[in-house]
């Protein structure tokens, strides 16, 4: 725990000082610990968030390497911002970092001119953060662990170093192998790689299931430079296609490793790894760090450097984001006002920070005649799926969720996202609002900001790079609801307590919300 905490705080290091200066000292350790103990059961949720933020609890080794790197950087006299830019791990200091990144071009990342030209024609003018962070390390010959989402430009992040290496040893064939979890992704990667490497005349070959073996065997025997494959079919060829081996392989990329492992490719990848030459560079990309991914990492990488970048700058244009500055005590009332009056009848997701709140608010809303359903980590898997299905099918139009719902789950179009509790960090925030305004549709996100949340909220605003508008409401209308809400609150607390006892949980009922916002990070440590 201590070790982990250290790493976590290291990540926070840059922002910590100013926080301690400005932020209210309300985040009392005792309270945080209390909350942490309650949240123990929401491991998945918090882990996910943590991973998105930067490192995550498990990756001690990798993290350590990353930090070593960072420390070196810092000691070598670079500014703090630059260091974080290189390592790109520090979740919340994005703005400075971004400014720093803006000034770098592909050329400055020591990408050769041929590739730069192609990138220019492909309209890739600036490296994305993940490219910015990983390319120099990759060019230096390091193994990489990349924590990045799809769409963050990571194909180019691994393709560029490989292509550049290929440029310097033009006669090598079967040079790199990229493993992807799905056939579609494999084709996509192949297309992108060929587009970027077009000027070098790079030949790629897609080896996926569901196609004839024979043409693939022929394609392989033409010795392409880069193979993009799904693991199953690649192993099939390694075992059954005579004369095909990957003994000359120099680069292995495992893209979306978490998904690869989710799809039970683990044993297959192990077999593939056995026949690959040990002298190779390996890049592992994953959206999240799970135990399985970590195992894979230990199995396949040597002295890897961790590169983590959040895609925090991306919110969709069609998303309207508002905040409401409200007193803490009236939080429920305002929420009910939004749900039952202002946005009545629309599909929406309300995000809370704790399971207790999720449970309580769903009961509260139900008591007030809204069809709300909770979704959080203390539900069984079937319960979760049931809740989700009811919401998807439209029999419930309000989902009250902890951050478990903010990622990974495929939730259909949602009109509104209400952050009952402010997101713990910008990454989580992006994931939450990403539930709405999907696929080109518009969406609205409303943040309920209490007097205690202001500091946190401004940090999110800073990360987003813009100021949100205040959502105007008629205070009179809200106060009309106060009485009925107060009554329902009491009833809801009672019900939640009963539910808790039934669950034989030792939680102490309704929590004070103050100070909780920091606990999230604390717990991740």
């Amino acid at each position: 725990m201590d070790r982990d905490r250290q790493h976590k705080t290291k990540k926070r290091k840059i922002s910590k000082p100013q926080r301690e200066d400005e932020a209210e000292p309300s985040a009392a350790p005792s309270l945080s610990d209390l909350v942490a103990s309650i949240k123990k059961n929401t491991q998945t949720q918090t882990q996910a968030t943590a991973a998105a933020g930067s490192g995550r609890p498990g990756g001690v080794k990798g993290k350590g390497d990353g930090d070593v790197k960072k420390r070196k950087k810092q000691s070598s006299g670079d500014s703090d911002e630059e260091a974080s830019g290189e390592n790109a791990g520090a979740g919340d200091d994005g703005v400075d970092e971004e400014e720093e990144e803006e000034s770098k071009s592909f050329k400055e990342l020591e990408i050769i001119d041929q590739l730069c030209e192609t990138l220019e024609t492909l309209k890739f003018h600036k490296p994305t953060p993940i490219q910015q962070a990983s390319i120099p390390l990759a060019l230096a010959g390091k193994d990489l662990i990349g924590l990045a989402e799809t769409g963050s430009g990571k194909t180019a992040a691994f393709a560029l170093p490989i292509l550049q290496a290929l440029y310097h040893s033009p006669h090598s064939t079967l040079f790199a192998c990229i493993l992807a979890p799905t056939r579609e992704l494999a084709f996509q990667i192949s297309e992108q790689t060929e587009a970027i490497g077009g000027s070098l005349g790079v030949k790629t070959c897609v080896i996926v299931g569901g196609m004839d073996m024979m043409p693939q065997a022929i394609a392989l025997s033409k010795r392409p430079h880069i193979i993009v494959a799904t693991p199953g079919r690649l192993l099939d060829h390694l075992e059954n296609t005579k004369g095909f081996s990957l003994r000359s392989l120099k680069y292995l990329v495992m893209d979306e490793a978490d998904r690869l492992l989710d799809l039970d490719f683990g044993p297959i990848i192990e077999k593939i790894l056995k026949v690959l030459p040990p002298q190779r560079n390996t890049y592992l990309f994953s959206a999240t760090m799970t135990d399985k991914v970590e195992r894979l990492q230990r199995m396949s990488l040597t002295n890897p450097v961790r590169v983590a970048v959040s895609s925090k700058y991306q919110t969709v244009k069609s998303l309207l984001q508002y905040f409401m500055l409200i007193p803490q005590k009236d939080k429920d009332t305002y929420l009910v006002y939004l749900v039952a009056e202002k946005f009545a009848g629309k599909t929406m997701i309300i995000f809370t920070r704790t399971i207790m709140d999720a449970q309580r608010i769903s009961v509260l809303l139900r008591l007030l005649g809204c069809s709300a359903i909770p979704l959080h980590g203390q539900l069984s898997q079937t319960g979760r799926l049931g809740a989700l299905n009811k919401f998807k099918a439209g029999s419930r139009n309000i989902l009250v969720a902890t951050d478990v719902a903010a990622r990974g789950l495929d939730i259909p179009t949602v009109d509104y996202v209400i952050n009952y509790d402010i997101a713990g960090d910008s990454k989580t925030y992006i994931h939450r609002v990403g539930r709405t305004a999907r696929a080109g549709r518009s969406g609205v996100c409303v943040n309920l900001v209490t007097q205690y949340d202001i500091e946190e909220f401004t940090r999110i605003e800073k990360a987003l790079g813009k100021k949100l508008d205040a959502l105007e409401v008629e205070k009179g209308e809200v106060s009309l609801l106060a009485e009925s809400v107060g009554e329902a609150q009491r009833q809801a607390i009672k019900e939640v307590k009963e539910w808790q006892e039934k669950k034989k949980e030792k939680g102490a009922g309704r929590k004070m919300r103050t100070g909780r916002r920091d606990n999230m990070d604390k717990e991740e440590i």
Partner: protein
Amino acid sequence: MTFSALLDSFGGANKPPKPPKSSSSSLSYREEPSQKRRRLNAAVSGILVETTNNDNDQDRSSTPPLSDNTKNPIFYKSHFNLDDAPKSSRAPSTIIHPVLGKVTISNPQLLQECSPNGSGTTQSDQNVTYQSLLSRYVRSYADVAIANSAGADREAFRRMVCSHALTHILTTRQTVLKNSARLAKRSSDDGDDIKIGRDQGFTRPKVLFILPTRNSCYDVVNYMVRLADGYDCENKQRFNEEYGPGTDKPFADTKPDDFKSFFRGNSDDMFRIGVKLTRRTVKLFSKFYHSDIILASPLGLRSVISSAAKGGGDADFLSSIEVLYLDSADALQMQNWDHVESILASMNQMPKNAHDCDFSRVRNWYLSGDAAAFRQTLVSTAFLFPEVNSLLSNHSKNYSGLIKFHDVYPGVLSPYIPQVFTKIQSTNPAHDPDARFEYFTKMVVPFWNNVGTLDKGGLLVFSSSYLDSIRLRNYFNKIGQSFGDINEYTSASDVARSRAHFSSGRYKILIYTERAHYFRRYSLKGVQNVFLYSMPGNEIYYQELVGLLRESISEGKSQLEESKVRALFTPWDALKVERIVGSAGYDEMKKDGNESVDFEFP
């Protein structure tokens, strides 16, 4: 000028002392076996040398037995060791070559390379024989088609192909074995083995012989076994039983020689056999995928391939054929040309299954699907016909080009029997039968009625097509004319009856098809007039038909003045007519314009 004549004038008659280099290539086939045997032994010892001490990569030229015969490996290398097929210029031109006679060449380079003055041969002109040049073309992996009416010359060509095929297999195998040994050594040393020679195709079979009869297969295999001296022959007993001549009774003396030589022995046209060359043995009846040579009749091979279409078998064993030999294309045409076409169409396709193929050693041009451009197609035929020409132009994709040897025809017209050839205009080969039939009903039959030919009897109506003969049969039925009908499907008793009635004069007309004549060669009695509804493809048949007429005249059954040969032809029959009237005569005939024209001979 025939092949033999050429051979005599250049090779046989004034046989000069040959320099050693050309002696191996100038293929006078009587002495050839021993020479070939020597060469094959050399190649074999070469293999053994290579496999045992394979570390000397460059020692090929220093192995003495091979050095006197380096030509083939050189040709082999220059033909096959390319990554991509170069584009061949495809502008066929026909020329008269001083040595080769009339040839059609698709790639002008071919002529230069092998011309007497070219860089390829160093001898002076008179030492370069037709045979040696032909052999040179064959061994340079160019496509070669020879049309030659002399059976002995085709036999010589066949032998030339046999030895070429064997040499090709041994050379390829030598390379493969050498590389395998080198690979084995590498992998045992555990060094990096990225540089592997690409030396093979998808599947093992390299040579395909399409032969008309079991007997021809028997001849070819025996010849190759004889060439492969020092090899044991497995399954020879079984081969003799299934392909050998057996105890067939000899043909009647009346049958012509070409018929006897073709149908002698086992004339079954449904067979296929794989031949595999191992280190010390020639194994007959090996499985196709383990064979080096496949010998088959069109029907026998087609039955394997077409069951592939239904999902049963497959044609993958044809994917890596590098030398294809079509023997006696004229006979194959008489069997079923469709089979030949379909076999050619399924040659050198991408295989559907891997068949345990080592892809790292498959040549690049196989992988890129250019195999057809490297395949050598060799065709021998007694005469050229439109189907074989179309086959060559569609399926001969060899980048080295195609050389087609034409025969020069003196003509087989009878000097004293009146022969009238009528040219019918037909703009489209598809409309040809209709134009012919129309002319026949509107012009010929009324003329016959006027002159009384039909009443006189003894009219032999010959058709080269079975379908035309059916049309004629229906027509005669319609006009109520008594006639006999002999075609390839007629039963023996019907044939006997028709012949008897025709010769007795009870049947005034006898319809006779070319294919019936090809398979039976009946000597028909009582012929007083010959009408060629369409020309026979083989000019010998024309001679024979006219001979029937001549016979009845000499027997006094018919008068010379009243007997006549009349023939219809269209511009599409050009090749057939040329063979009958002679190359020079036909040049005159083809000039005339749009009208129907009669040409009278003599």
